[in-house]
């Protein structure tokens, strides 16, 4: 579902500062303009013009020597294979902007059009660099691919003397690819095949009984049958008296937040972000770690009273989660 109302306003407010700014990183050609790359380009493109590859023909042309095909302009500064495997430069405002879109559900991206202008022919030995500016971000648009925004960038290309040699405009659409899951949607919804679910606990001798209690709607706490000490997480032996006999009690679920985090990254499929997780001091004296739900993350604080309830957190798993008491 597309962002609307206040949420859309807030999101568009975050976009504004990006309009008109440079992206903060320059693309610098890894090699000067050279005959080898020109030849490969011409072969791939089937371009047999002599001024690109034949030194003798080029010498007697109006160029008086080899020049590069103007359409190679962007090829001189592309990052090559490293583009696929490298890490985003954290200073890159364009990448940052795309992440902002991703975080708000506009995870799709498609390039829609590009235009190039050439001010002079490049010659072997020319050193090319490029600086990119985010020119504009459109209003929210409904497109065939989904609701989204067009981002226009302009890249200016310079030579070794800082003279402009050409420019390029680029337009991409960032669009919503699917409905975002919502934490409160879990209950009652039927399982959709392939829909991502949370990571389930691995069950063994020492914890399976506890998860069976959760299935029955109870937050259990293990208790030593010999000395009565409560312990969580469950263990096979009492650290106080070394007894292996144990039973369990059910927690009231009442507690206080000891500490908490607000997780933004990475976004693991099956979870909704920002995701709040807290260490809660239960009134029985043990602690339990789980989500705090239905509270604005900015309002969660240490010392807040919370109440656990056992709920479906996705189509397949129940978990005790906390709400403000």
């Amino acid at each position, binding site marked *: 579902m597309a962002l609307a109302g206040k949420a859309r306003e807030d999101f568009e407010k975050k976009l504004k500062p990006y309009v008109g700014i440079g992206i903060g990183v320059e693309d610098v050609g890894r090699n000067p303009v050279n005959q080898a790359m020109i030849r490969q380009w011409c072969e791939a493109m089937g371009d047999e013009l002599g001024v690109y590859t034949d030194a003798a023909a080029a010498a007697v042309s109006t160029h008086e020597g080899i020049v590069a095909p103007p359409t190679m302009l962007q090829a001189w500064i592309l990052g090559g294979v490293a583009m696929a495997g490298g890490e985003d430069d954290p200073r890159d405002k364009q990448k940052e902007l795309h992440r902002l879109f991703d975080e708000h559900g506009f995870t799709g991206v498609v390039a829609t059009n590009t235009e190039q202008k050439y001010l002079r022919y490049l010659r072997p030995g020319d050193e090319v660099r490029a600086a990119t500016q985010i020119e504009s971000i459109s209003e929210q648009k409904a497109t065939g691919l989904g609701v989204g925004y067009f981002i226009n960038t302009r890249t200016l290309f310079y030579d070794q003397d800082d003279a402009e040699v050409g420019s390029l405009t680029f337009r991409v659409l960032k669009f919503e690819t699917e409905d975002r899951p919502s934490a409160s949607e879990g209950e009652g919804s039927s399982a959709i095949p392939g829909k991502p679910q949370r990571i389930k606990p*691995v069950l063994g001798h020492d914890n399976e009984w506890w998860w069976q209690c959760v299935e029955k709607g109870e937050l259990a706490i293990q208790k030593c049958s010999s000395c009565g000490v409560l312990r969580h997480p469950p263990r096979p032996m009492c650290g106080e008296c070394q007894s292996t006999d144990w039973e369990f009690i059910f927690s009231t679920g009442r507690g206080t937040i000891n*500490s908490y985090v607000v997780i933004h*990254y*990475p976004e693991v499929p099956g979870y909704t972000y920002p995701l709040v997780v807290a260490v809660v001091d239960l009134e029985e004296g*043990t602690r339990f770690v789980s989500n705090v739900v239905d509270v604005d993350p900015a309002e969660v604080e240490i010392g807040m009273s919370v109440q656990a309830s056992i709920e479906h957190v996705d189509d397949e798993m129940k978990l005790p989660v906390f709400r403000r008491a």
Partner: protein
Amino acid sequence: MPTTLKDQAAIVGIGETEYSKNSGRSELSLASEACAAAISDAGLTPADIDGMTTFTMDNSDEIEVARAVGVKDLTFFSRTPHGGGAAIGVMHQAAMAVATGSAKAVVVYRALNGRSGSRYSEGVSGGPTTSDLIHWSWYMPSGLMTPASWVAMYTQRYMHDYGCTGEDLAEVCLSQRDHAVKNPRAFFYEKPLTFEEHQSARPIVEPLRLYDCCQETDGGAACVVVSPEMARELPHAPAMIRAVAQGAAGDQESMTSFYRPSLSDLPEMDLVAKQCWAISGLGPDDVDAAVMYDAFSSNVLFQLESFGFCEKGRAKDFVRDGNLRLGGRLPSNTHGGQLSEAYLHGMNGVNEGVRLIRGTSSSQPDKNEHVLVTAGVGVPTSGMVLGQG
């Protein structure tokens, strides 16, 4: 037979590969190159090596590395668990092996494709049912499954208890970045960071922002440990191991010790510190520089208090007074740390500790009699004090 590990072993060689985001080769290749470089730096040949030790998390088997490098008979080999907590645990193993005569020359190594291969930031998930996976199963369902999320949990409570802010964390990052800018091995070589950039960077897990989190790196680092007698015959001035110790505290979990009285304390590192001072006969006042494990910026604050460089809760003031910088009380992470040089699970920190003792850091402090080097925070961990030969 020695009764303590004080001055029973020395680091005589260090080596590392290029640190990158995409090595394009195997972890075994990285490990082999780092080990060969360390052996060569020590002035030894592979045939002189008879011990090897690494992390349980390392994917390159000791005997495979030995075969690749040309190391022959091994009389000592071992592994240390708990991720970055092993960084000095491996030094402890090497020092004990040399001190007891179990080996004459031990290579310590760690190599990983931490960016192009398996990334720790992606968190834990399924696998065979072990006590370790049962442990993670208490956190995976709620989504608390990355190192940043676990460390953020203690950091939040610590900041609450002691009035520490994101601006205090920023100073840790900025001081280290200023060091990295001068270090050609560093990812952030010649790339400075401003206070505003730190504060406005995107949150990863609040209260931690982007630059509070370490690199993910492809690379290898290694060093060679021998007896003090052997060290005297070798080309480099030795970095003597004045003290080395491990620590796992009561009610400890790996990264998620949320069940102890205070989340603001680091009892396992307190335990390491106590042993380091007892073994070496030194104290915080004797230490001139430090390499403190920094998977996350807040790690440094906890450790300053564990080792007694400041009182509990006062690390923020210690840091804000510029004490981690050159000219400050305790120039720290002079290579840029794992925040700004590379994340080699602490092994790059061991090598920087040796450079500090040799006087060859790219941010070399004037005084370098003793240097503290520590391992992972939030896990069973370890630390050592290095000194002049």
